[in-house]
């Protein structure tokens, strides 16, 4: 019989083994006593001596029992049974504790599910450690195709180096045209990434050999499912990209969003097809981007455009430094073959997992803020429950003392108490997971409006989230349980057994665990209320902003004709026709077009030169992306607008004239500027007649013909910007946005607008028609959500802190009943007693508020990037939040204080 087998047998017979042991010990005691009696002791004394000699029988039995029990398991079962019993015995406490934990754990789980679905996401590629994003240090990080070739062919550090560029494509299939995010990639792109097709095949180097000879494309799994219904005959299907026939050869794996997280790419096509895939500014032949400038066929001079991002797989054992050094030398040598005076080139290598786009980094700081806030709420909940547990263990002191006295070890007692708290936190965790699930569902039911957030964010609950909430629940249980458990298992045995309440040391102690916890709670709540208040104030400030246009009457439609490859002439005609026909629609008052959509978060910046004034910037940034606006005095934001733009949007002209028929192509170039431009660049004097250039000394020079009132350019929250408007007729642009001013509710013209546009150009992808109201709503979405979330968390914190203060004071009053009785009996005024209690409570609150406000002043600086129009030290917010907290805390003090006031001296003195 092996020991394990014997143990099993004994375990099955454990009752009998217990009986045997008891009988054996009794036999021992009887024998021992007999012997001592023979030695001359009295019967009783002999029995006691025998007992003493044997020692702690309970402990001994427990030691022996270990041989046939799995003690930890059985004790756990025992502890759990007891914990459940305790929970039912104190239903109010249990419900309160579980609920506050559920809120805390739920908030953390919900935030984690966001972080998990967005930030912890990784590109699903093989051998990821060796993959690097390759950026050029200059020119926005991009390479020209010839430079890419030079690096690819010259370097020895890569197993493979691919290049790609993101592109917006018009995709036509089944007679429907959509706009999709795609990528132009080199033939080795998928080999370098190391991913395999889920259907058909991915692109190979053989698909990228001869210019214009490879009309093949790979689509994403997502596009296959949503656009093509997941049909089995997807491979070999013909589609049209920008109007050209392509054949789908394969589908990427489901988990692969594209070469960079944050933007899902739906279509991939070979580099050799770039000329027809890239949007064409004017509809004329795209410049040849593949040949270097010695061999340019279009005869254009100047550098070869840089537009490609690099993605490389390093050879095993190559360090980033080695690769960087080699690539830098290669790039410098290549560029100096054209111009030996070129500055040295630098190449940056970023490991795949660190190459997050800026939007993701922004999201990270938001997630950090929300996560920190959720963690603070959970901490407050923990402090609260720890306090309630401390109060409860004080009343269970006798129970613990008895158990310690009869031989329970301290560890055993602590284990039991921790079992109770972990059980509580587990229940809280389960309910919290339910809360998180509701949050996720409601977020999925009401997703943010498109464009409201810089990055698509996602919530989802998967195994990792479940594991997180399990671990969090367990840790939470330990965190709030450990202090009460430590204190409870170390009672002063003798007074506790005698049932003398430890009232004497409860009173008048400046420092106690409970008081510290209350102070911490108040401080943390203050810390949470401050950002909540700042966000609400900032939202109010944003709401009261006058956008400077007639928001209520406007609809915007992006006209993506750049994918249609119109010639300039055809484009002009198209815009003219659209405006003319749309203006005839019922309910439409006016229509016009603009290059930079109003308040879309994007913008264009040019260097500004005023004739006769020194100093200007040569930099010209064509920007598209959040926050691309400039307040630099040598730069100006620009927009190209069609006839009637100001009237359509309701932007009043202050000085001069609007653009007119006379500002035609070939005529004198004109420009209209904003009021702020007049103040900034012309000292507030009438600038009409002055000339400005956006291209430096060489011009072209443009004459200012008018000044318009300021209106919001890229975002509602921006300060008034210097903006210059250029007439479309003199500056033709593809990709304008149509603005329609209506006399009826703007949403009601969307349908007829769409039909009219489709009638004018069936191949035009018409998507994303939005009213200006919803655009503004979207631009406020993030602040609204932020204010809402932080207010919820702040309110929660406030509520929890109030419960904490109330709990501690009530408890201390219940322990000081006799003291109150004596005070009253000796003639203390009831008011004195009342203030005594309130003062005790508010002292803690004041200390907490001071700590919280100090922390808030420091911490709020970090919030500045989230706030509109108010400073991070906004006095009104701090005052209001301090007041709110103090008021709630006072209320929490008054209730127990009133109870203390009503103590009946007679009962109190008789008590105990």
């Amino acid at each position, binding site marked *: 019989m092996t*020991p394990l087998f014997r143990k099993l047998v004994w375990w099955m017979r454990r009752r009998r083994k217990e009986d045997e042991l008891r009988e*054996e010990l009794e*036999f*021992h005691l009887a024998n021992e006593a007999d012997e001592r009696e023979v*030695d001359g002791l009295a019967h009783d004394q002999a029995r006691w001596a025998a007992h003493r000699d044997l*020692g*702690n029988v309970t402990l001994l039995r427990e*030691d*022996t029992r270990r*041989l046939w029990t799995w003690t930890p398991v059985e004790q756990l079962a025992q502890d759990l049974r007891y914990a459940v019993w305790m929970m039912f015995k104190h239903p109010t406490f249990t419900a309160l504790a579980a609920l506050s934990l559920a809120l805390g754990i739920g908030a953390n789980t919900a935030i984690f599910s966001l972080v998990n679905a967005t930030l912890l996401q990784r590109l699903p590629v093989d051998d990821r450690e060796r993959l690097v994003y390759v950026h050029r240090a200059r020119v926005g990080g991009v390479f020209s195709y010839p430079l890419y070739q030079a690096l690819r062919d010259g370097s020895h550090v890569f197993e493979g180096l691919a290049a790609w560029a993101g592109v917006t494509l018009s995709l036509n299939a089944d007679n429907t045209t959509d706009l999709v995010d795609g990528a132009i990639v080199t033939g080795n792109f998928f080999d370098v990434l190391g991913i395999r097709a889920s259907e058909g095949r991915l692109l190979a180097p053989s698909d990228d050999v001869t210019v214009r000879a490879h009309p093949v494309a790979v689509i994403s799994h997502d596009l296959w499912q949503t656009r093509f219904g997941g049909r089995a005959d997807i491979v070999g299907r013909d589609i049209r990209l920008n109007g050209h026939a392509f054949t789908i050869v394969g589908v990427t794996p489901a988990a692969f969003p594209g070469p960079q997280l944050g933007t899902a790419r739906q279509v991939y096509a070979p580099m050799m097809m770039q000329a027809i895939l890239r949007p064409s500014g004017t509809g004329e032949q795209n410049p040849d981007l593949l040949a270097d400038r010695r061999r340019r066929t279009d005869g254009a001079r100047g550098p070869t455009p840089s537009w490609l991002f690099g993605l490389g797989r390093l050879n095993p054992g190559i360090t980033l430094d080695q690769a960087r050094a080699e690539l830098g030398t290669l790039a410098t040598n290549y560029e100096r073959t054209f111009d030996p005076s070129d500055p040295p080139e630098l190449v940056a290598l970023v490991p795949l997992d660190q190459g997050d786009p800026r939007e993701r980094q922004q999201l990270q700081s938001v997630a950090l803020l929300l996560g920190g806030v959720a963690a603070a709420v959970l901490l407050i909940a923990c402090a609260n429950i720890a306090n309630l547990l401390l109060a409860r263990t004080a009343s269970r002191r006798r129970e613990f003392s008895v158990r310690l006295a009869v031989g329970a070890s301290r560890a055993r007692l602590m284990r039991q108490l921790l079992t109770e708290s972990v059980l509580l936190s587990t229940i809280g965790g389960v309910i919290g997971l339910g809360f998180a699930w509701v949050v996720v569902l409601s977020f999925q039911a009401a997703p943010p409006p498109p464009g409201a957030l810089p990055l698509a964010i996602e919530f989802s609950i998967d195994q990792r989230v479940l594991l997180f909430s399990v671990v969090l629940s367990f840790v939470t249980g330990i965190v709030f349980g450990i202090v009460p458990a430590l204190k409870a298992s170390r009672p002063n045995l003798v007074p506790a057994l005698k049932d003398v309440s430890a009232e004497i040391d409860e009173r008048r102690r400046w420092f106690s665990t409970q008081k510290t916890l209350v102070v911490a709670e108040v401080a943390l709540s203050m810390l949470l209320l401050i950002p909540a208040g700042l966000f609400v104030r900032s939202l109010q400030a944003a709401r009261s902003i006058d956008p400077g246009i007639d928001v209520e009457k406007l609809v915007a439609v992006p006209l993506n004709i750049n994918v249609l490859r119109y010639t300039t002439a055809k484009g002009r005609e198209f815009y003219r026709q659209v405006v003319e026909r749309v203006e005839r629609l019922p309910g439409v008052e006016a229509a016009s077009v603009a290059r930079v959509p109003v308040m879309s978060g994007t913008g264009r910046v040019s260097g500004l030169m005023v004739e006769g004034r020194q100093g200007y910037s040569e930099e010209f940034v064509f920007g598209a992306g959040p926050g691309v606006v400039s307040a630099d005095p040598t730069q100006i934001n620009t927009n190209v607008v069609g006839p009637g733009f100001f009237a359509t949007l309701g932007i009043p002209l202050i000085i001069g004239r609007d653009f007119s028929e006379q500002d035609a192509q070939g005529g004198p170039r004109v420009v209209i500027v904003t009021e702020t431009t007049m103040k900034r660049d012309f000292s507030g004097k009438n600038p009409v007649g002055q000339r400005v250039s956006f291209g430096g000394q060489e011009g072209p020079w443009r004459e200012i013909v008018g000044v318009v009132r300021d209106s919001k350019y890229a975002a509602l929250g921006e300060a008034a910007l210097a903006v210059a408007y250029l007439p479309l007729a003199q500056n033709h642009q593809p990709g304008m946005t149509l603005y329609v001013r209506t006399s009826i509710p703007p949403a009601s013209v969307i349908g007829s607008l769409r039909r009219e546009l489709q009638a004018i150009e069936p191949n035009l992808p018409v998507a994303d028609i939005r009213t200006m109201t919803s655009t503004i709503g979207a631009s406020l979405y993030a602040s609204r959500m932020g204010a809402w979330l932080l207010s919820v968390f702040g309110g929660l914190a406030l509520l929890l802190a109030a419960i904490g203060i109330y709990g501690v004071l009530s408890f201390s009053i219940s322990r000081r009943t006799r003291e109150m009785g004596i005070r009253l009996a000796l003639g203390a005024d009831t008011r004195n007693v009342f203030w005594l209690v309130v003062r005790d409570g508010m002292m803690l609150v004041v200390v907490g508020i001071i700590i919280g406000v100090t922390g808030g002043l420091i911490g709020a600086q970090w919030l500045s990037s989230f706030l509109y129009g108010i400073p991070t030290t906004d006095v009104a917010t701090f005052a209001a939040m301090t007041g709110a907290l103090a008021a709630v805390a006072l209320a929490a003090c008054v209730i127990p204080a009133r109870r203390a006031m009503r103590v009946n001296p007679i009962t109190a003195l008789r008590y105990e």
Partner: protein
Amino acid sequence: MAHKPPSRVELLRGTLDLLILRTLLPGPSHGHAIAKHIQRTSDDLLKVETGSLYPALYRLEANGWVAASWELSEKGKRARYYRITPKGRKQLASEQSKWDAFARAMGLLLKPLGEEGR
């Protein structure tokens, strides 16, 4: 009260098993008798924590080194008698030789100072 020996030696860890097995070598015995025997034969110098005796007995039984059965004691009461098993004898032999080696080594190391270098 019974007389108290001047000083009692605490048992070394693990030696209790050895003592119990050795005690059982001549014949079966019950717990109380084992305790008394160990105390008596060591001239009362060893203090056997009676409390630790019983867990040890059950542990030896679980290891299969002793077997237990209920029999009538000399006084006619039911008592649990322990008997050493063949496996227990083997264990005793190996433990004893280990102990002997240990005791010899300790004896050599702790020789009175004067005996060194003789």
